[in-house]
């Protein structure tokens, strides 16, 4: 796992926040909601591999099977 992941997640967060503001100002609340949802799903997909990585490491180190 790279430290990049933390920065990437933060960048996606900032981009989604900006997009949300722009879309709300443009009067498209529904699309703003969809953008937020899509961002959350993308970030979750990125995180889930790392969570799996952590679980495998803990299982190997502490002998949990």
């Amino acid at each position, binding site marked *: *796992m790279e*430290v990049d*992941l*933390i*920065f990437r*997640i*933060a960048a*996606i*967060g*900032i981009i*989604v*926040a900006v997009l*949300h503001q722009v879309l709300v100002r443009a009067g498209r609340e529904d699309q703003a909601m969809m953008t*937020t949802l899509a*961002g*959350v799903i993308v*970030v*979750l997909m990125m*995180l889930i591999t*790392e*969570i799996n*990585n*952590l*679980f495998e*490491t*803990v*299982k190997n*180190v*502490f*002998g*949990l099977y």
Partner: protein
Amino acid sequence: MTMDTNIFSIVGIAIITTALAVLLRQFRPEYALFVSLAGGIFILLLACTGILPVVEQVYGMLEASSVPGEYGSVLFRALGICFVTQIACDTCKDAGESAIASKLELAGKVVVLAISLPLFQQVLSIVYSLMV
């Protein structure tokens, strides 16, 4: 890579993650949660790789003192369960879901108890054999 040279990078990652989480919390609170979770996973991964020689040394010491190896195995399995439970529990608490966090703590305690109960049974049998 040993733990003592690594601690500076861990501290740096922790501070940067905290700064990013605080920044994101005012715009989108859910991304602050994700950033802190990713940072926590990263730090825990580094800690787990640092603890590997400690685990081997403790196993070696247990073997030298002719203690059965299953005792150390129980100890470290309980420690691993505690690590995994703690990171999920802290994430729930950070998100304000203290109800889920306390249930998760309960589940972790139950699993650790189920793992360590056979050892307790052995202690009881030793006590019983001493009494009779």
